């Protein structure tokens, strides 16, 4: 039978008389938890930002026609050579068209799938930017601006102008910021482009695009899909790429495989294309947790140390408590409650410190070319980190308190009293 009010009362009094060492033990926990909260919020914030940077503008499934050699060369099909070892020199890619055959029905079909958030067409082509007598090679992509903005955060990468403006201007172009700088152009100016075949087209700059990767920004520009079709002299069904965004990224692999088989196209899912990002994320998470757990173990040793010393000092008190009718369990509860009091107070302060630190960090300016829309360091505020952090504090102090308290429980009062 444990009488908790008395036990907590004794535990509190003993801690208060040893305020300094108690405070130091609690501070150990505080710093451990504070560091955990700060680290995990900051690291996850950065992770999310980097993931967004890459993954949000990347289609979950990218469908196109790959130019590649046939997997089965004619000699493989010919029965007479079936059992012989065939070597074919100088294999050339198979002659095929760049455009996706029957693109519109495919898009229509994909958009009806309930897992698909949206499937939109693109046309990719090479062009030259003409600046006087200089020709600069570049990429021109025909898009549906509004849908791109809706599905792939396209708006985040437009530093001047807007997707709507591009949509409403028939001969408009969103010029890459690098090429704009090279040619000293800005919004409202006109730029001439030339197709590979040599046809010249004047386009009006309605905005500037900046992805953050300067190699891309130096060549890439966007126009309306119809504009590209006109420039290239192709029909309205000329589509080179289809980008698909799903509701659940996990379904990308299966759907891409299915699409590949069904329509005889190449479909790359995001997991295959960006496997390294997931590895990076999980490694960063692992480091965060390893550091936090190391800090908490150190804090745990601090608590262990303080309690061991306290028990050593309070040997007489323990004996007398046992003599006047406190059981071994009662005495153990006293020291366990002390450990938990340290854990709760230290943990709560740690959460507070973590909250303050992350708030401070989230106001520090963080300006970078690569991330046009980011002004301050990214922090992921998530209530779960606080729940986990607090549980960490309780669990680590519980274990730190358990061993010393077990020792206190086993102290034989007769030995102590007679030993005087």
């Amino acid at each position, binding site marked *: 039978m444990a009488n908790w009010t008395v036990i907590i009362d004794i535990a509190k009094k003993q801690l208060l008389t040893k305020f300094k060492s108690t405070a130091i033990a609690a501070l150990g926990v505080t710093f451990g938890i504070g560091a955990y909260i700060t680290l995990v919020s900051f690291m996850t914030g950065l992770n999310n930002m980097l993931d967004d940077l890459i993954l949000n503008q990347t289609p979950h499934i990218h469908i196109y026609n790959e130019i590649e050699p046939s997997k089965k060369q004619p000699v493989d099909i010919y029965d007479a050579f079936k059992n012989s070892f065939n070597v074919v020199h100088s294999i050339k890619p198979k002659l095929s068209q760049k455009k996706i055959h029957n693109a519109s029905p495919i898009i229509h079909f994909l958009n009806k799938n309930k897992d698909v958030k949206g499937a939109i067409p693109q046309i990719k082509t090479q062009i030259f930017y003409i600046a006087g007598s200089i020709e600069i090679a570049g990429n021109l992509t025909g898009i549906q601006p509004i849908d791109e903005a809706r599905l792939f955060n396209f708006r985040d990468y437009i530093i001047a102008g807007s997707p709507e403006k591009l949509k409403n201007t028939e001969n408009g172009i969103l010029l890459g910021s690098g090429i704009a700088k090279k040619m000293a152009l800005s919004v409202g100016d006109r730029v001439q482009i030339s197709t590979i075949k040599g046809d010249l087209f004047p386009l009006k700059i309605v905005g500037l695009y900046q992805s953050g990767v300067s190699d891309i920004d130096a060549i890439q520009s966007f126009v309306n899909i119809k504009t590209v079709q006109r420039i290239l002299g192709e029909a309205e069904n000329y589509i080179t790429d289809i980008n698909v965004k799903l509701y659940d990224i996990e379904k990308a692999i299966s759907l891409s495989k299915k699409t590949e088989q069904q329509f005889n196209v190449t479909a790359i899912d995001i997991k295959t294309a960006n496997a390294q990002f997931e590895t990076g994320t999980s490694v960063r998470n692992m480091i965060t947790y390893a550091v936090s757990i190391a800090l908490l173990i150190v804090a745990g040793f601090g608590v262990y140390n303080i309690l061991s010393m306290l028990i050593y000092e309070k040997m007489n008190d323990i004996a007398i408590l046992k003599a006047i*009718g406190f059981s071994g369990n009662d005495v153990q509860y006293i020291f366990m409650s002390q450990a938990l009091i340290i854990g709760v107070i230290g943990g709560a302060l740690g959460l507070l410190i973590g909250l303050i630190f992350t708030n401070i960090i989230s106001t520090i300016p963080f300006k970078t070319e690569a991330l046009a829309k980011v002004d301050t360091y990214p922090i992921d505020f998530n209530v779960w980190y606080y729940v986990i952090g607090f549980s960490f504090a309780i669990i680590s102090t519980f274990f730190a308190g358990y061993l010393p308290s077990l020792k206190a429980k086993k102290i034989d009062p007769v030995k102590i009293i007679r030993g005087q």
Partner: protein
Amino acid sequence: METVLEAKNINKYFKKPVLFHVLKDINFKINKGEFVSIMGKSGCGKSTLLYILSTMDTEYEGELYLNNDLITGDSRQKLTLIRNKHIGFVFQFHYLLSEFTVLENVMLPAKKLGEKSVKEIEKDALEKLRILNIEHLAHKRASQVSGGEKQRVAIARALINNPLIIMGDEPTGNLDSHNADNVFNIFKKLSVEENLSLLIVTHDEDFANRTDRIITMEDGRIIHE
């Protein structure tokens, strides 16, 4: 006469460092209201006996009765409760919890027992302090009162649950003659007025001679009762 505490054929061995027969066939009774002292030379086993009687030491042979109930072989949990409720303890050293006030020290065993409300316990504790003439110390920290006063606080604490018997291990051993006298008078008064049984281990012959009965021990045996 009503028997409060009875020991039957108590034998105790120390196994370390060598096997040693420390208590040999101890038999005695203590009646209600009796003031008994145990005397003997150092090492004759009197303190060992006291700790067996107090239920703190359970490694012995023989039988122990408290209020005619056999308590030998009871679980630790039950013995703890018995110690809390029926046995009051006074040691040579004062053993108060120094972080607590005098009053809180006295209240502690009753709070642990938890049979009364805190208000009632406080009233009882003040009453016990008044009996021992140390009411004025109630709100002082235990570490701030003198040795003689501490021993009286310890007695008040031993009394708080109205025990059947008070046991003392040389309670006056560490006090000057004036304070020792004081403590004796308190014990005597409790024995006479409250009809409380007392069992005190002592070296002090003057003290022992003034008690109702002296149990003398030598080499683990009772040689005179």
